[in-house]
């Protein structure tokens, strides 16, 4: 570049450390300490992106996290690529590659720019209004709209970086290390409080760091020098932990805050290996001090969005902190004294200030005198009415404001410039304060919202509390912290402050123009292209609530969350509607304050750490024997065991046949097991199950159904009476924890008088289920000293036994309808007993089977699976399980609900069997069931809940729920599928061995 835009005298930059980086495929140079924005500006690059809707050229506008325009794609086409990164925040490093977003083919020539010309026909709500007609065309429109919408690109591969979470507890958390935050940190730490100070920047001190002017002094020292000493002092304090590059994302109730600490994003790529990239800090602070500062407001005038237009404070920051000039012929446009500080910084460096346009008629402060002394033109009482230049501002025109500020009058004056700094005063950054539930109040004199009611033990200080001059900041900060922290020694004597600022301001939310509003483009939200015109249109169309206007116009809904323009939107609404500011509310600031990466949010909980994995004691055997696994809750359950080239269907058919023809073996260890003891255990079971339990003899087992208080089936399982006051309950695999929780709830809160104790023993026992006609021979070999005869050990009974020296419990219970034995043994013996069973069963063709076969076998018997054949709307009566509901018991959980007007309706969905006309046709689970396919809309009677091809019956079988199904036995119904209708007949849900002969079958 021929222009000299860089001064070599910045404190922040290391000029001996030159860094090369790539932006839009071009190589540039900057220095260590530069942000991408400051380095681009030093290379005279202002145009960095295109706006979202109109694709207008946009430039860097700010120097901080509030940036709406300069959001870029980092690391092109790699697994680390990241969209929407603010160029004003990312520090450059060797190897940085970035590109513009939302433009094609390039930022200089963007085809979407046609939208700018079409803009008169693209008002707010354009998409809502236009693409609704005709109704069924939406699917066609959507494809194109989605294609052209969206900003950056997300990575297509897994994130290769490491992230982590960390808890921090402290007495005082201070957010923001500007001048007030630094003072607060010193006061807190020096008074023995464990203090944490965080700041999103790489350095401490905030904007005072570069406040080098003769016009702001503390104790007769230039403010930046005074603060430098303070910063040096606090860096050595023992009680103080300082975290830079740390941005607080969320401020929740109870002073719980989330912050992201950025550890490697500023390092050269080759130094990042094996380092944690971001750390999510979960902070619990006894007290929180927000010193989050303020953000300068832009001004709202026609074409206020061209590249080269920046906040005036940003121009000052680029000069004083980064040593970069934003242009060589700069105009400042302001309604307050801030721009004069910028003008003084510029003249100190010899940059030309072409003119200052000031909304105010009266300008008198030490700063303005200094500016006038330097022969800079000041247009008092003027406003900018238009700007020129497409990819970079090259001029503007100004006109005189009328007395009431509503109109422009007189001659139009044209001025040339290559950059424009705007200042509409300051907006306190109250985002975090309001996130925590804080209430704001409106201060009329300078039109700002400031904190009013604190919801927790917290305090706002400095400019986020509405103190904008050093004088106010220092005086109020020291006093309020002394009170807030209840400390005696402030460590500060009275500070002598000298400031040149006069606080006067002429606030006009929407500046008038010589054009009619419809012909202007005065941007309120730069990123989302929402203009003043759009907001007024929304009001004309009847929107009043700020939340509705926001959603209709998309004001404040970009990645910057409207940090710049939200106040103007509120101002324009209240002016147009003739109401007071704040009457329509302020929009809610939601976390995160600045976007977080997904990596930060999930931390280490990725891959195998995503969720807990539970494995049974026999798991390794399943793995060796080629089992495919199924996730059931957190459990890994053997699903089926394919042999050679078998697919799932073939394996399941083989396993199912083997279990009924000879013998099958199932790992049932995942079933929930609850040990129940106490003198009232029987009474307790009476109350929680639908059937009666008091007469169950010791050594006997019984199936039980558990309801919710609303009468709906909640869980089921077999419970065994081990002793007079001792039972073991089994629950479904997925329901175990909830059942235990529910039982505890009733015991602790409704029936504390019952003497009952519960403990979960799910993990303590391995459960091996051997079934089939040969099962008895197999278990007799495994446990030879136990009498397995039907007389001594009938169905639904239990025996204590020993395998060698190891105690075990054997239950003769069946979920398959076959003769079946369950061996429960201490977990660590599970695998060896399983292997013993396999060995004993060798001559009987024992076949291990998984959950899929288990489901098939029980469906043949019409046994339900809670959660598959039921949802939370099925009563036992709906399931045709009336037999298990005791009529004699006075009460049990859910009893009263079984005869509510709703539950006794005859047309409720009821469980039935379904047989297809073609026995080879297997229904799809979840398919809808209807009678009349000609009716429109078709009435849905229910759906298929379980469906299999039964190798034992040689036909397809299914269970389903159908409205009034109980009375439909034999009736024909239709299952409409995508390309055919399947005819079915309603059948008894028990398809196999209705008499239960197989339970005692002898071979």
């Amino acid at each position, binding site marked *: 570049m021929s222009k000299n835009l860089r001064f070599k005298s910045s404190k922040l930059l290391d000029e001996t450390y030159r860094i090369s980086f790539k932006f839009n495929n071009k190589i540039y140079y900057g220095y260590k300490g530069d942000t991408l924005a400051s380095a681009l500006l030093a290379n005279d690059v202002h145009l960095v992106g295109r706006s979202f809707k109109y694709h207008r050229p946009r430039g860097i506008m700010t120097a901080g996290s509030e940036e709406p325009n300069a959001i870029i794609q980092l690391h092109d086409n790699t697994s680390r690529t990241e969209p929407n990164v603010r160029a004003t925040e990312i520090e450059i490093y060797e190897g940085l590659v970035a590109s513009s977003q939302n433009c094609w083919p390039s930022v200089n020539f963007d085809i979407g720019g046609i939208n700018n010309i079409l803009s008169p026909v693209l008002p707010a709500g354009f998409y809502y209004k236009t693409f609704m007609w005709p109704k069924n065309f939406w699917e066609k429109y959507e494809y194109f709209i989605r294609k052209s919408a969206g900003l950056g690109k997300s990575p297509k591969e897994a994130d290769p970086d490491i992230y982590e979470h960390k808890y921090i507890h402290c007495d005082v958390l201070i957010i923001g290390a500007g001048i007030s935050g630094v003072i607060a940190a010193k006061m807190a730490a020096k008074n023995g409080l464990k203090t944490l100070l965080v700041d999103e920047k790489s350095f401490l001190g905030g904007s005072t760091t570069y406040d080098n002017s003769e016009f702001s002094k503390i104790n007769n020292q230039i403010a930046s020098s005074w603060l430098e000493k303070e910063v040096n002092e606090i860096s050595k304090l023992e009680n103080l932990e300082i975290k830079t590059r740390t941005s607080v994302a969320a401020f929740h*109730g109870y002073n719980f805050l989330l912050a992201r600490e950025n550890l490697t994003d500023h390092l050269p790529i080759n130094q990042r290996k094996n380092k944690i990239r971001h750390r999510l800090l979960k902070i619990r602070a006894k007290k929180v001090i927000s010193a989050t500062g303020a953000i300068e407001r832009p001004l709202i005038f026609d074409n206020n969005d061209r590249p080269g237009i920046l906040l005036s404070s940003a121009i000052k920051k680029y000069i004083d902190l980064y040593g970069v000039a934003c242009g060589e012929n700069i105009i400042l446009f302001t309604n307050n004294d801030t721009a004069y500080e910028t003008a003084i910084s510029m003249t100190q460096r010899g940059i030309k200030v072409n003119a200052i346009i000031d909304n105010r008629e009266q300008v008198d402060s030490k700063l303005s005198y200094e500016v006038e002394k330097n022969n800079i033109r000041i247009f008092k009482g003027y406003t900018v009415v238009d700007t020129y230049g497409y990819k970079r501002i090259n001029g503007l025109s100004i006109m005189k404001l009328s007395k009431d500020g509503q109109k422009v009058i007189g001659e139009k004056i044209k001025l040339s410039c290559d950059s424009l700094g705007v200042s509409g005063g300051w907006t306190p950054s109250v985002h975090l304060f309001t996130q925590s539930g804080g209430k704001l109040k409106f201060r009329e004199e300078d039109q700002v919202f400031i904190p009013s009611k604190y919801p927790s033990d917290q305090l706002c200080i400095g400019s986020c509390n509405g103190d904008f001059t050093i004088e106010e900041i220092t005086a109020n900060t020291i006093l309020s912290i002394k009170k807030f922290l209840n400390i005696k020694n402030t460590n500060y004597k009275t500070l002598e402050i000298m400031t040149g600022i006069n606080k006067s301001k002429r606030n006009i939310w929407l500046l008038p123009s010589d054009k009619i509003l419809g012909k202007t483009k005065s941007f309120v939200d730069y990123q989302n292209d929402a203009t003043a015109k759009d907001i007024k249109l929304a009001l004309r169309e009847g929107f009043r609530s700020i939340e509705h206007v926001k959603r209709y116009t998309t004001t404040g809904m970009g990645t910057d969350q409207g940090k710049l323009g939200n106040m103007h939107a509120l101002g324009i609404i209240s002016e147009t509607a003739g109401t007071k500011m704040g009457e329509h509310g302020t929009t809610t600031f939601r976390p995160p304050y600045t976007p977080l990466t997904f990596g930060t949010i999930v931390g280490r909980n990725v891959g195998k750490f995503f969720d807990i994995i539970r494995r049974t004691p026999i798991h390794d055997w399943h793995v060796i024997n080629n089992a495919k696994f199924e996730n059931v809750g957190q459990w890994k359950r053997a699903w089926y065991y394919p042999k050679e080239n078998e697919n799932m269907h073939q394996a399941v058919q083989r396993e199912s046949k083997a279990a009924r023809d000879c013998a099958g073996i199932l790992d049932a260890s995942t079933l929930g097991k609850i040990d129940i003891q106490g003198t009232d255990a029987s009474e307790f079971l009476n109350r929680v199950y639908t059937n009666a339990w008091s007469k169950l003899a010791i050594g006997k087992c019984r199936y039980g159904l558990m309801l919710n208080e609303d009468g709906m089936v909640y869980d089921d399982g077999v419970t065994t009476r081990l002793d007079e006051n001792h039972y073991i309950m089994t629950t479904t695999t997925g329901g175990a924890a909830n059942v235990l929780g529910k039982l505890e709830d009733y015991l602790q809160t409704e029936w504390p008088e019952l003497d009952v104790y519960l403990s979960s023993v799910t993990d303590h026992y391995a459960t091996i289920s051997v079934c089939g006609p040969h099962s008895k021979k197999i278990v007799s070999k495994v446990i030879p000293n136990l009498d397995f005869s039907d007389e001594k050990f009938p169905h639904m009974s239990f025996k204590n036994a020993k395998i060698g020296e190891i105690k075990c419990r054997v239950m003769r219970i069946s979920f398959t309808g076959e003769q079946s034995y369950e061996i429960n043994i201490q977990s660590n013996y599970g695998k060896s007993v399983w292997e013993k069973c396999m060995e004993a069963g060798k001559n009987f063709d024992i076949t291990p089977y998984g959950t899929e076969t288990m489901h098939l076998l029980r469906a043949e018997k019409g046994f339900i699976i809670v959660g598959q054949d039921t949802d939370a709307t099925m009563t036992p009566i709906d399931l045709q399980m009336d037999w298990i509901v005791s009529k004699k018991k006075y009460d049990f959980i859910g009893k*009263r609900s079984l005869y509510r*007007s709703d539950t006794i309706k005859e047309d409720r969905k009821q469980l039935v069997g379904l047989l297809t006309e073609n026995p080879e046709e297997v229904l799809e689970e979840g398919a809808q069931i209807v009678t009349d396919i000609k009716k429109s809309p078709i009435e849905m009677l229910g759906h298929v809940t379980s469906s299999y091809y039964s190798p034992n019956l040689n036909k397809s079988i299914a269970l389903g729920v159908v409205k009034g199904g109980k009375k439909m036995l034999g009736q024909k119904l239709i299952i409409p599928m995508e390309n055919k209708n399947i005819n079915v007949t309603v059948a008894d849900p028990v398809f196999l061995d209705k008499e239960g002969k197989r339970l005692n079958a002898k071979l």
Partner: protein
Amino acid sequence: MFLINCPFCGEREQSEFKAGGEAHIERPKQPTELSDDEWAEFLFMRKNIKGVQFERWNHAHGCRKWFNIARDTSNDQIKAVYKMGEKPPVK
């Protein structure tokens, strides 16, 4: 995220607890005596007020005990924590 002072374990983070809805709704002793409306009142009707609300909480990932809290729903401040069977110490 609240900090909840479990009456058995002391102050713990909310993630250890499970909320159990409105407190002080006693299960009727003789449900069969109730009309549909009376039973529905017990089964379905819950308050949703702005202000102090009494709630059941369970220290699910701790001592597994149930207890009650009085929480101001407008600002989530917990006014009191008390054991099952005890009367609310605040109004």
